[in-house]
């Protein structure tokens, strides 16, 4: 057994897992405040990457400015999605809201490649290509930076949850009516959560866009993110961080160990199996609160 290879896979897997976890963090943000699963998170990440690319190439803005502009635009987009679509779904069964986000996912997947062109776009944020060596171990520089930035953004969103605004959000997620009655503006808390979710999605969209290029396949980040969010417990941001590491390492090791045995790419299956196992053994996830109804 090649332990060096395993070590390399584990490190790269953990970093990639952190990058996925950032997408999951957006799902958790929305779920935590509005109790609603956002299946459009992957597509929103894709939209952020497309906007960044469009600002950078279309307007010729420097990359840093483009990123800032895209983040600001996406915050507004998040607010708009909540205001125009999701708020009208209040009181509807949860299945309807899930379907609404799925519809949004499909629409964005058509809109952005339709407007900006379907070919893969290069998004260069200036991460060098040459690998980093830690002793014998090779660490991919793109994932290294991506993982670190993702972890940073997740930590920042944890801090937000401990701020005054975050307290509002948590109150809203506990009981919307009670929050209302003590004077918290419930709509605004939810809207801000959507805005922040869109911002985190954009960051992950940019990071992934710079590693794989920008095209519709960015919306596929959703499945991994969902696996991570469910394993972590849907309403726990630290849970996302830990679950991201677990899923990333598990996927990476599965690719190294199981793929040769079955002769096929097992990456997506690992995510699916993790979802199923979590639901069977610990449906509320590793760190989620036990309020999911079982029948």
């Amino acid at each position, binding site marked *: 057994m090649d332990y060096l290879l395993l070590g390399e896979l584990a490190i790269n897997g953990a970093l990639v897992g952190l990058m996925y976890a950032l997408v999951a963090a957006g799902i958790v943000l929305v779920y935590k405040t509005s109790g609603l699963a956002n299946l459009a998170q992957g597509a929103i990440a894709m939209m952020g990457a497309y906007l960044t690319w469009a600002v950078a190439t279309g307007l010729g803005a420097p990359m840093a400015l483009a990123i800032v502009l895209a983040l600001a635009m996406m915050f507004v987009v998040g607010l708009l999605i909540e205001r125009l679509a999701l708020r009208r779904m209040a009181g509807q069964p949860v299945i309807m809201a899930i379907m609404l986000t799925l519809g949004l996912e499909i629409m964005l997947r058509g809109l952005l490649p339709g407007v900006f062109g379907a070919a893969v776009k290069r998004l260069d944020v200036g991460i060098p290509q040459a690998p980093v060596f830690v002793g014998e171990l090779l660490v991919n520089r793109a994932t290294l930076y991506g993982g670190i930035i993702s972890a940073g953004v997740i930590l920042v969103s944890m801090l937000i949850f401990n701020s005054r605004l975050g307290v509002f959000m948590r109150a809203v997620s506990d009981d919307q009516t009670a929050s209302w009655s003590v004077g918290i503006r419930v709509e605004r808390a939810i809207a801000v959560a959507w805005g922040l979710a869109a911002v985190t999605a954009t960051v992950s969209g940019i990071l992934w866009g710079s590693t794989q290029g920008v095209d519709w396949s960015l919306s596929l980040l959703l499945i991994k993110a969902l696996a991570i969010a469910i394993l972590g417990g849907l309403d726990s941001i630290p849970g996302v961080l830990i679950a991201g590491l677990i899923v990333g390492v598990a996927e990476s090791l599965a690719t190294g160990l199981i793929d040769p045995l079955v002769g*096929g790419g097992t990456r997506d299956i690992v995510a699916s199996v993790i979802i199923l196992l979590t639901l069977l053994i610990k449906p509320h996830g590793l760190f989620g609160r036990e309020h999911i109804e079982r*029948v």
Partner: protein
Amino acid sequence: MFYRRAGIRHTSYRAERQLWPLPFDRALVALVFALLVLAPLYLGDLYLAGYLLPWIIWSTAALGLNFLMGGAGQIHLGYGAVMAIGAYTSVHLVRAGVPLEVAMIGGGLASAAIGIMFGAAALRVKGLYLAMATLAMQYIVDFVISHVPAISGGTQATIQVPTVRFLGVPIVGNTATYYMALAVGTVVTLFMLNARRTSLGRALAAVREKDYAAEVIGVGTLRYKLLAFWISSFIGGVVGAVLAVCYLRSISPDQFHIELSIQLVAMVIVGGLGSVLGSFFGAALILFAPIVLNNVIGSLSDTFALSISSDLRAHVPLMLYGALIIGFLLWEPLGLAKIYANVRDYFLVWPFRHARR
């Protein structure tokens, strides 16, 4: 005018429980059915094989899914995988020499058996979690089918469906395949129409509306949810077999991907949750809107020499598809079936609008 409805509507319980109490509705259903049966006589290959046949098959599949989503209130994002199990099982059975009728039932049973395994795991949780579990099922089934050569059929991963006979008729050409699909579709439709009038249908409605209230009045929630899963998966398996034999004629794993599942869910939503008629409407809209739209845009840009970039033009159907789902959920959550009902209500007492209840 058309419905001629006024005053007392029924005089016995039997009359009240009719599927179509009004003579006009009965006549309309009979007319549509007759048109469907006679379709091969007056429709060309394009409309028979390109539109009507897929419409019947997809509608039947949407009915099966609607039984679960509308009838029992459970979301299922892996219905394509359920159909794949049915399709592959039945095709392999047929190739082993089993008659098609038996193979179809076999496919249905296999789908039901595997579907209920995931269902049992998933039904302990609700809503989003169920959606995720069925999504996981989709990926796992996809993977297994495409990675076991014995199932997928060797290096090319394509299996030809041999020429088979259904009820003594060889299934070749467009007419025979159409009639076979229509026969299965009719049986499923009749089952769906009648299911809600049975104790099963009422129990499922109780579970859908409030599961613990159902439990309180003595309806075993888990049992009925599992039953709904079983029936829905069985129908899915049978439709999968029909899809393989009548329409695809050679099956490969990518025909049953997540796109198919999403498509079916969209059909149910757009058509109307829990509505039999809606499943047909939804299937028609989701299946044909992209095609018609593509043709319309094509002819518009030809006639008026509009310069629409090919990227944009090609993506419009996808946008429309998403926009339809969003639009219906926001403005008419009960779907096309409700719009039809509104039109029907309008005409029910027309032109004596003041006589409306």
